[in-house]
């Protein structure tokens, strides 16, 4: 099982009382606002959950694993996520040895 936008909308419908349309729009704009902030070069800090940060990576040499041919991996900006201490301990406590 996987948590998706459809499930999140259903949860907003049940727990917040938004109608189905509003719930779906809210989930969509929640992720869009985060994408927009990151696209604009602004990191996102969601206290109790985690931080989305931006990292600028320099160009580095790479290789086509199939042909062995050397090709540079261009400089790029990437998103990294750091879970908050609260989320980390929630996960490690609740999901401790379940699947180890």
């Amino acid at each position, binding site marked *: *099982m*996987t*948590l*998706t*936008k459809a*499930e*999140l909308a259903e*949860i*907003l419908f049940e*727990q*917040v009382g*938004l109608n189905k349309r*509003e719930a779906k*729009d*809210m*989930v969509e*704009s*929640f*992720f869009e*606002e*985060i*994408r927009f*902030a*990151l*696209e604009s070069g*602004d*990191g*996102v*800090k*969601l*206290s*109790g*959950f*985690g931080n*989305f940060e*931006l990292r600028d990576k320099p160009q580095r040499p790479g290789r086509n694993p199939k042909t062995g041919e050397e090709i540079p991996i*261009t*400089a*790029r*900006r*990437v*998103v*990294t*996520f750091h*879970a908050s201490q609260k*989320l*980390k301990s*929630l*996960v*490690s*406590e*609740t*999901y*401790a*040895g*379940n*699947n*180890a």
Partner: protein
Amino acid sequence: MTKSELIAKLSVRHPHLVAKDAELAVKTILDAMATSLASGQRIEIRGFGSFTLNYRPPRVGRNPKTGGKVSVPAKHVPHFKAGKELRERVDGNNKD
């Protein structure tokens, strides 16, 4: 952008909702995401990314103060992988 700034932006985007609803919605979404990961269930948001758990095997760590050995039990830690749309929009220079 902080959580309260996100809530403010969402209430501007959804003017027909009372302000409290945007706040409650953000808290409910984050809560559902945290609960999902804590129960070992992954999260997959098209165009945004996916959250999964990575396994960390048990290891012997050190107390940096005393130098004493401490056993660190196995655990799972949250991991995020950005989706295609987010990756491309963030890396504006490489867009095409």
